[in-house]
């Protein structure tokens, strides 16, 4: 189901080249800090805080069009596969890897598609908060990303702090209001066996990166 077909590659190029990139460049405007830390090729994992549907599009637009098919956002199956046309769009145009969030699903096979993508040299985009949450706040981080690292030796996670997108297009809003947004890319975090410690490091790293944003608000 998640194989990349030639048709979806073309659709992706058109969607990003004609809509997403101009929108991100002009409608939003990004202040990107430490672009040189962005992993150029897979396998790699990008982990960002999550406040808006724009988050995924902004992270993908950091890469040249030719690399886009290598980027695989890991997204909630219960949300993105719920409606038929949304599922088609998410799978074929964005190229998500659907992830079952419910606890009922078999633990050991949960990340099979992620592993397959990593082994194919793809770059995974994950949002460890699990959902978009309150604007511009970092919620509790889920441990899934630690599982991914544990199984693939030598892999590191690149934390990326996003700021401003929760203002431009927050959860439950359809009107996009233009704002400049910050994208601050951090040093890659290597695997540590203690999952709790690892997630704490990641949260600290994201909060540290958020401090260097220039589009700050009075309340943060």
């Amino acid at each position: 189901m998640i194989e990349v077909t030639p048709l979806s590659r073309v659709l992706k190029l058109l969607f990003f080249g004609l809509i997403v990139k101009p929108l991100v460049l002009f409608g939003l405007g990004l202040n990107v800090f430490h672009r040189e830390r962005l992993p150029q090729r897979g396998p790699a994992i990008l982990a960002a805080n999550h406040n808006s549907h724009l988050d995924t599009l902004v992270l993908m637009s950091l890469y040249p069009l030719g690399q886009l098919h290598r980027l695989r956002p890991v997204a909630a199956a219960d949300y993105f596969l719920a409606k038929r046309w949304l599922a088609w769009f998410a799978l074929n145009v964005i190229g998500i890897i659907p992830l079952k969030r419910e606890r009922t699903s078999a633990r050991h096979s949960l990340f099979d598609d992620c592993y397959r993508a990593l082994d194919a040299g793809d770059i995974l985009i994950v949002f460890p908060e699990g959902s978009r949450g309150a604007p511009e706040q970092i919620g509790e981080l889920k441990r899934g990303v630690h599982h991914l690292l544990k199984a693939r030796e030598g892999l590191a996670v690149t934390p990326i702090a996003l700021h401003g997108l929760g203002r431009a297009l927050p959860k439950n809003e359809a009107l996009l209001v233009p704002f400049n947004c910050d994208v601050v890319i951090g040093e890659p975090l290597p695997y540590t066996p203690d999952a709790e410690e690892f997630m704490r490091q990641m949260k600290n790293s994201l909060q540290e990166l958020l401090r260097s944003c220039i589009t700050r608000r009075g309340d943060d």
Partner: protein
Amino acid sequence: MSDVPLYSRYAIYGIVALLVIASATRLLLAYRNPAKDYTELRQRIQSWWWMIGILLVMLLASKTIAITFFGVLSFLALKEFFSIVPTRQADRRVLFWAYVAIAFQYYWIATDWYGMFIVFIPVYVFLLLPMRAVLIGETQGFIQALGTVHWGVMLCVFCVSHIAYLLVLPVQNVEAGYIGPVLFLLFITQFNDVCQYIWGKLLGRHKIIPKVSPKKTWEGFIGGLLSVTVVSGFVAPWLTPLDRAEGFVAGAFMAVAGFIGDVVLSSVKRDLHIKDSGTLIPGHGGILDRIDSLIYTAPLFFHYLRYLHY
């Protein structure tokens, strides 16, 4: 290029010549001191080439395209302003209408409706935008939020749009054409920035407002004021309807206004604890960092010109 009025054409050649000199000087410096890092200087000059290149293409393309270009400049500036100042999450729709106001403001200019252009933002937007916020109903922080929004719209839309209105004023100096006054305003404003910087570097001792801008000195300010006044007196009769004496006066108050715009926007950034307002222009920072002095010189020059000659 051949249909550009004579004096405006000379002005464009002059500006390009200055850019060539700047680039050549940079290369010479890098050649003489190979150990020193000139990355920022290189970025600054490269960005100047881009900014002036884009500006000239837009100005020469057509009047409508030039007006649209300044509308886009207002949009980018206002977006940058709203992104760095504190705004309430509840005000998203208020800000949305503030962006919509840009299109109207530049439409009045394109249709040469002066009466509407001059009151639209200070009267209609000022009075009606708060009503959108009232309908949302969030009263916590209302005063500050609305004050911030209106200040941003005044600076980035109302003030900046005066540049575009210069384009639709009836041409009085035929050899300058409709782009002459705009070239004059932009050149004098940027020349003042550069002069104050250079005089400050050469002679700067006595700080004016160390709390806001530690690099601003009396020597830089007065040196800039004198250089700009002299140059303006000679350039104004070529590019604008002003005569020589009026040109001297224009140069003097534009030097002061440019300085004020610079330090006012610096105070905004100090308040927010940021150095630059954005990263759009490599070596310069954001749009607001570049047009801070222009925000002040544009309406003052426009009304001076209009009072004396229209």
